[in-house]
């Protein structure tokens, strides 16, 4: 008895050791390249630095104080939250819908999948040119069809109206990212054992019940992944929006990361940029922890 138990313990210890071995390459790289950068960003957020000169006076919490009283930054936080809350559910839902439709045997499946993935790989420069055509207030395609369908009676200036610019950008972002959600869900759908559907059908479940009782719950790991990475991504969105609206009108589509860039690069205020980054990471960290707690990170398929 005791010998097999000690064998088992030895096996267990060895297996645990292998887990660490598996993790070592990542841990080393992480320590060298990321942790170091993080630590120094934190260090810099308490200093003032123009990057080009070595002069780096200590300024305590001044950078943080400046950040918290800046009304434009506050607006950017609101904009980013608006963008996040609106675009993520839409993206995930449409991605799921398309994935479900393209999962079964359907003619042209591969081609459709590729086409729905195209927005993800179309260069942002190209997408922005075409979407500006679409949204153009005077000659845009969207206004043209809306007027034809008599849904509006005069042209709408999508990108230059302070209240419409963000919705316009959100629609474009959903378009841009649903291919990504589609791929995640397509992969996740393959992890659901087919015999579950079999058994459900035998038990008399219809398609809707199969969807809500089997598919969606078993896609939870994918959904969690999408949720966490999308929130992180949308808090860091910048080019996608800026290239369409220059952050306007009147700052209504500015995002937090824009201010980080501006501070670091335009104004040579590296310390301030670092403080902004730290604040952003704190915000994101809180949200991510909340999401993981909510989904209980150990959630596995049962």
């Amino acid at each position: 008895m005791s010998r097999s138990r000690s064998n088992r313990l030895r096996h267990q210890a060895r297996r645990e050791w292998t887990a660490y071995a598996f993790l070592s390459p990542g841990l080393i790289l992480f320590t060298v390249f990321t942790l170091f950068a993080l630590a120094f960003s934190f260090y810099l957020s308490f200093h003032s630095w123009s990057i080009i000169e070595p002069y780096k006076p200590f300024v305590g919490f001044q950078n943080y104080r400046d950040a918290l009283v800046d009304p434009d930054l506050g607006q950017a936080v609101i904009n980013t939250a608006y963008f996040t809350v609106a675009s993520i559910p839409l993206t995930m839902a449409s991605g799921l819908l398309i994935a479900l439709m393209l999962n079964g045997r359907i003619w042209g499946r591969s081609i459709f999948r590729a086409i729905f993935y195209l927005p993800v790989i179309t260069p942002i420069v190209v997408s922005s040119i075409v979407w500006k055509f679409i949204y153009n207030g005077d000659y845009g395609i969207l206004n043209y069809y809306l007027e034809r369908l008599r849904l509006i009676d005069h042209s709408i200036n999508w990108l230059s109206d302070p209240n419409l610019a963000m919705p316009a950008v959100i629609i474009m972002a959903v378009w841009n990212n649903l291919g990504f959600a589609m791929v995640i869900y397509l992969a996740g759908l393959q992890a659901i054992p087919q015999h579950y559907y079999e058994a459900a059908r035998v038990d008399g479940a219809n398609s809707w019940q199969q969807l809500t009782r089997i598919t969606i719950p078993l896609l939870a790991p994918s959904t969690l992944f999408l949720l966490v990475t999308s929130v992180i991504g949308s808090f860091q969105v910048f080019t996608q929006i800026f290239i369409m609206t220059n952050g306007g009108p009147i700052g209504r589509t500015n995002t937090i990361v824009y201010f980080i860039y501006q501070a670091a690069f335009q104004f040579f205020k590296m310390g301030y940029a670092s403080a902004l980054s730290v604040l952003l990471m704190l915000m994101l960290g809180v949200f991510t922890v909340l999401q993981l707690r909510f989904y209980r990170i150990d959630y596995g398929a049962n």
Partner: protein
Amino acid sequence: MTVTEPRQIAAARPGPPPPARRHKRISPAEVVLLVVRYVILVAGAIICIVPFFWMVSASFQHEGDIFSWPIQWIPKHPTLGNYRSFFGSGGHIGVWLANTTLVAVVTTVAQLFLDSLMAYAFAKRRFPGRKWIFALFLATLLVPGQMTIIPNYLILKHIPFAGGNDALGQGGHGWLDSYAGLIVPAVVSAFGIFLIRQYMVSIPDELLDAARVEGASEFRIFWSIVMPLCKPVLAASAIFTFGYFWNDFYWPLIVMSSPQHYTLSLGLALFIGAHKTAWTLLMAGSVIATIPVLVVFLIFQRYFVSGIAMTGIK
């Protein structure tokens, strides 16, 4: 749940499960559903393809036509001139393509392997500190990626024994302006680890325990049992990783200086001047740049097929 043998075998074949009853005739409701499905797909596809279509069209146009009004979706005066400039003399696109292919392929392969290794540890192995280390890796996603660029630049510059550096990393230029500088920092990604881990939790533990009881090493279990079951998520990861590194701009911008090391995105960015962009050339270059990513997608998406993965075999 008891499943009879024949049904189980049927479920193991790729494709949707056979219907419980054979219908002789498809009901009108199903026809309507099918039509609705196709309408949505076609409408969505049209919206998704428009900018890509414009890009391709523009790559065959002259500069004077590209922004004319109304938009020429089909070029009225098509030209091959833009493509000819790329492949003619003085064009560097061969070099750019070679560099980008090298970086993207090596990084993707490395990531697929290393990320899976680590995902497996997080998904299927219990060890002290598991939650904390995983959270730490997730934390790297929170960093505005750009914040790591200058520090990483400096780290690369001071890698000991590289690029003319001594043991303390002084004197030379380290891994700057080299392929190692582009690839090494990128071989592990928290994103990829998280993605693959989420998929791996769906693999039944019984499968792995059975193998452990038989004395298989962890690595063997990982490589021979888990990885084949993960084909769909590995395919997804390959698509994302390849696409990301194929199009990456900022990291090559910072690391590379010599023209012979430039990647495609860097090279194409040179066509964007301060106030004048060579649009038609840029569009031709972008079409060339987008095709490999599309090809990779088409190749790997065939793994998104039911039946490759879980069947609950005991």
